């Protein structure tokens, strides 16, 4: 029976697909665990860093710093941070769409836009659509703080040279395993420094500053950019694997469903075949008996 064989072949194929999606789910799960650990490990560093930066910003006049300079936004840079690889649901698409909408809106307002892409997916999408200043691909396999430093070194000097006026970073904010939200933060001009009311005055200690407090701030602000970029990288990495876990879990379940309905179809077809055969035999026997 040709139909029977076809169904059987289909079942085997779906089973193989299921094996793959299951394996991908498990790989993503273990990567996700590692990513989450890294996020947890990064938190004390980030928090400590913000504490010091905020207490420093309260003492020093920050308005004059070139990284905080507010200019009329004519030229806008956007960092679009996606994963390198796909198969993770709408993770990249949602973000890319959000970034594209933003870019189009700015262009409509007569702004000049330039893009920095992080991750292969974002590069591939925007390659022919927008002006890309620099791109980073295949970075998420193994990355650390040096990647954040490299990206920062690409964006800080042009801002200081006044080659552009505002910089927005698009990345997937990590909410939990199954939820990632496209988020946008304005990196330049830096704004969130020193406005954090969390620093209560009695906790503030009068430090001795070495070298001077201004010089220290001068060095800390670029490091603050590293911290922000690194955090976005971590969240993207964790989010990517979380999204892939969910997507692969779904795929595995769909495979199971498909296998179920195909098996049913297979059994029905087999039953039908047996019945026809039986009818044939019975019919033949009757014909013989009559004859």
């Amino acid at each position, binding site marked *: 029976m040709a139909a029977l064989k076809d169904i059987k072949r289909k079942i085997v194929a779906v089973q193989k697909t299921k094996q793959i999606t299951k394996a991908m789910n498990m790989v993503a799960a273990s990567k996700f665990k590692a990513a989450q650990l*890294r996020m947890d*490990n*990064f938190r*004390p*560093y*980030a928090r*400590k*860093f913000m504490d*010091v930066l905020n207490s*420093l910003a309260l003492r020093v006049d920050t308005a004059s710093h070139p990284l905080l300079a507010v200019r009329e936004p004519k030229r806008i840079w956007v960092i679009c941070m996606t994963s390198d690889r796909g198969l993770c649901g709408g993770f990249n698409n949602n973000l890319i769409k959000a970034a594209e909408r933003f870019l189009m809106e700015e262009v409509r307002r007569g702004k000049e836009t330039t893009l920095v892409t992080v991750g292969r997916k974002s590069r591939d999408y925007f390659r022919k659509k927008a002006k890309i200043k620099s791109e980073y691909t295949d970075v998420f396999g193994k990355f*650390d*703080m*040096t990647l954040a*430093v490299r990206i920062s070194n690409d964006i800080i000097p042009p801002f200081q040279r006044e080659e552009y006026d505002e910089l927005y970073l698009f990345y997937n904010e990590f909410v939990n395993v199954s939820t990632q939200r496209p988020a946008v933060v304005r990196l330049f001009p830096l704004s969130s420094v020193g406005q954090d009311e969390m620093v209560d005055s009695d906790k503030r*200690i*009068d*430090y*001795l*500053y*070495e*070298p001077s*407090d201004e*010089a*220290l701030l001068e*060095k*800390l602000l670029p*490091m603050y950019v*590293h*911290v922000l970029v*690194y955090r976005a990288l971590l969240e993207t990495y964790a989010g990517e694997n979380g999204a892939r876990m969910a997507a692969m879990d779904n795929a595995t379940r769909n495979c199971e469903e498909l296998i179920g309905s195909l098996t049913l179809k297979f059994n029905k077809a087999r039953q039908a075949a047996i019945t026809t055969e039986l009818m044939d035999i019975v019919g033949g026997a009757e014909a013989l008996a009559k004859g």
Partner: protein
Amino acid sequence: MADELLLEIVTPERMAFSGKVDEVTIPGTEGEFGVLRGHTPLLSFVDVGVLNFTQENKKTYYAVNTGYTEVTAQKVTVLVETAERSDNIDVERAKRAKERAEERLSKMTKEDVNYEKARSALLRAITRISVAEKP
């Protein structure tokens, strides 16, 4: 003990060290300085260099990258972008990095945009080698 000092070395990747020490020496931008318990509150930038601390008369060495340190009377927090303990350093890799950096440096002039980068890479490699050779 009353004269104990809490030291924390924090990097973006992990908490590299956390514990009580007797004394710590930090490579600041304005020169190396030692901290004992009861130090005046101090904030200083940390340069690429060797950090060491004493625990029960035993010295431990770390190769650290740039960052800063916050010193209070009972606690020293060191935030650096990397920190490696002497026995965790891959000397062979560090030596290779040193050779690479030296080679690059020999081909450039001081005006080269990458000069600073190569110079700091060399500095880091030398630091790591010197730390690795410590007991």
